[in-house]
């Protein structure tokens, strides 16, 4: 009787745990059935939707017959999932795509291969210098290889500019609205002609972000020291953003909200400075305004916002092969292809003169906007972000948003922001 009871229990446990062993056993099965190709090595690659062209990844298998490329499109919070995996120290991919938050990974640079030890330097002159340098930690190890970039430019409504008596042709706009002051003057004119029907720019944080994207001395120096409280560029960015608010040039439409979408679609926003990937965001948000938008060079100078990178993790057993795949995926030819197919802007200036850049775009009234962004990308200045950039930048922009939304006193808030950052740096 007792043995029967134990048998039943054991059975119950077996069924409970068989769920765990299921996938493992099936995997070993499949590798056994693949015995003839046992020489093939497997490389796991993590990316997110539209960061790498899916078709290109499919072609990679043919290009590298000895490699089985296990591509995993990671949905949801990519950064959190990568960090959890890094913390767990198991199940790490060989190759991983990274967004511009990759600066946060600099303290953990030892978890990545220094790509220069794998021979990255031979490709250096094919890529934008400032983009290349962003992937190198202050200690000099290159943990991230350039993928696409985010050159910035001025997006504007030609019809509204025309109604306000402003130049509406992209060349003329580029030539006349050259500085932030020019841009504000244009905004005043727009306001006089169109009243509160249209505003010059979308929101205060974007003005600040764009100003930083054009400048070099941000919150930190490469040696890690904090300079935000004395950096003229930070201060100027804050003051310019506040001036936009005080002159009522902002529609106060926050990015990534239905409000923003509605505002660009119904003409409440007449222009904004944005990175090239805003083209897709805008096209989807404002279908009713197709043909009316144009792109000109950004007032205040060319800049970069966003763009991504790709790395090889130290846990990878096949770094050489991974590096081959990575450089093949991101070579100039394939970057150009990704631009044509899914709008990822190349970080390889060699292809900027390609006829593909001159494709007219109906949403922008037949303008070939690629030329504008190519010119912008070439001009971006090298700037250092530092691993705490996201945190510090968040502290500043949250307070800046309060200036616009709750009419908080900008001077008092500036002091408070600087104090808050000091406190933050001490922990």
């Amino acid at each position, binding site marked *: 009787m007792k043995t029967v009871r134990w048998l039943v229990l054991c059975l119950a446990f077996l069924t409970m745990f068989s769920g765990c062993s299921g996938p493992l056993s099936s995997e070993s099965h499949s590798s056994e059935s693949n015995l003839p190709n046992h020489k093939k090595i497997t490389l796991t690659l993590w990316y997110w939707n539209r960061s790498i062209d899916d078709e290109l990844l499919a072609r990679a298998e043919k290009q590298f017959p000895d490699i089985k490329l296990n591509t995993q499109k990671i949905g949801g919070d990519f950064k959190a999932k990568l960090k959890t995996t890094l913390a767990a120290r198991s199940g790490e991919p060989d190759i991983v795509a990274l967004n511009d938050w990759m600066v946060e990974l600099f303290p953990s640079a030892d978890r990545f291969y220094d790509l220069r030890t794998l021979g990255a330097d031979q490709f250096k002159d094919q890529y934008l210098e400032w983009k290349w340098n962003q992937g190198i930690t202050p200690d000099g190890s290159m943990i991230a290889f350039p993928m696409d970039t985010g050159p910035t430019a001025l997006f504007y409504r030609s019809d509204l500019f025309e109604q306000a008596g402003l130049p509406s042709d992209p060349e003329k706009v580029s030539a006349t609205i050259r500085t932030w002051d020019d841009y504000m003057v244009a905004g005043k004119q727009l306001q006089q002609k169109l009243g509160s029907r249209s505003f010059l720019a979308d929101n205060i944080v974007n003005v600040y972000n764009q100003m930083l994207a054009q400048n070099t001395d941000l919150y930190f120096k490469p040696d890690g020291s904090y300079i935000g409280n004395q950096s003229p560029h930070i201060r100027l960015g804050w003051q310019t953003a506040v001036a936009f608010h005080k002159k009522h040039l902002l529609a106060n439409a926050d990015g990534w909200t239905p409000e923003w979408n509605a505002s660009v679609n119904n003409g409440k926003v007449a222009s904004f400075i944005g990175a090239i990937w805003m083209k897709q965001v805008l096209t989807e948000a404002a279908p009713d305004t197709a043909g009316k938008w144009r792109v000109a060079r950004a007032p205040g100078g060319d800049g970069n916002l966003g763009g991504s990178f790709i790395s090889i993790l130290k846990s990878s057993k096949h770094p050489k092969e991974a590096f081959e795949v990575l450089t093949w995926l991101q070579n100039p030819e394939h970057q150009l292809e990704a631009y044509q197919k899914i709008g990822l802007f190349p970080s390889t200036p060699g292809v900027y003169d390609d006829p593909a850049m001159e494709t007219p775009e109906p949403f922008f009234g037949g303008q070939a906007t690629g030329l504008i962004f190519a010119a912008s990308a070439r001009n971006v200045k090298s700037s250092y972000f530092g691993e705490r950039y996201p945190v510090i930048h968040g502290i500043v922009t949250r307070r800046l948003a309060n200036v616009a939304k*709750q009419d908080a006193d900008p001077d008092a808030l500036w002091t408070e922001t600087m104090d808050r950052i000091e406190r933050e740096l001490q922990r």
Partner: protein
Amino acid sequence: MLKEIWKHRAVYAAISPFYLLFGIFGLFPIGFSLYLAFHKWDGIGDMTYNGWGNFGYLVTDNEFWQAVGNTFAIWVYSTIPMLFFALMIAFLLYAPFVKMRTLWRVGFFLPNVTSIVAVAIIFGALFANNFGFLNYLLQLPGLPMIQWLNVPWGIQIAVSSMVVWRWTGYNAIIYLAGLQSIPHVLYEAAKIDGATGAQAFFRITIPMLRPVILFTVITSTIGGMQLFTEPQVLVGNDGGAGASGMTIVLYLYRESFINNYFGYGAAVGWGMFLIIALFSIVNWKLVQGKK
């Protein structure tokens, strides 16, 4: 003792899965978060011992205390109307003249099983600053628009209304169960003594429901202090304008997973535990003490 356990080992083995799972997924994370609260950790690299540093920072952290204040404000705005409406609904559902009760009960309970993310998106469209539905309604009779998501109370009302919408039916069902357990004879006796409906409600229903009310107050205290998804989807990781929608758990999430201060996030979690415990005791005393 051990002998006794060994004697009944089959029984212990049979109930062990719960304890094993609880040990792995319940007890271990609790212990680990306590360990983490005394360390600095960016989530990937090595942990360094920080002593009471995280807690020292916590008590002097304005943003944390603002989050505590926001959470309490949202709790007040949501729990009081929620429990009041729930009691009214339960009373109506219990009334003899209501037909198709099961349908009503299901209807009132339905919001509770709806995805919060979907709800938050809908409420976002209702409360939107310029093109929101509420502002559209306000404009119809010529009233001024309200920048709901720019003013602190606007954000807090928006979040609270989501909580009310979601949990009123749930509490109503609990109250209904409580109402059904009150013996009918009490009401009949009251009727014979000439009591009015209101008198019966305040002298019989409310006192008899006290344990049930206590239960709902405690659960909504815990739920309210742990509010996260609603503000996160409605106003984002930063809590919206002026961080007015920043709740304690949202703050914990932002510090840990956005700003990579995992040790500090754990300390926030333990701070929150203390606050919930204290606040629950206070509520318990208040509801209980009216004897």
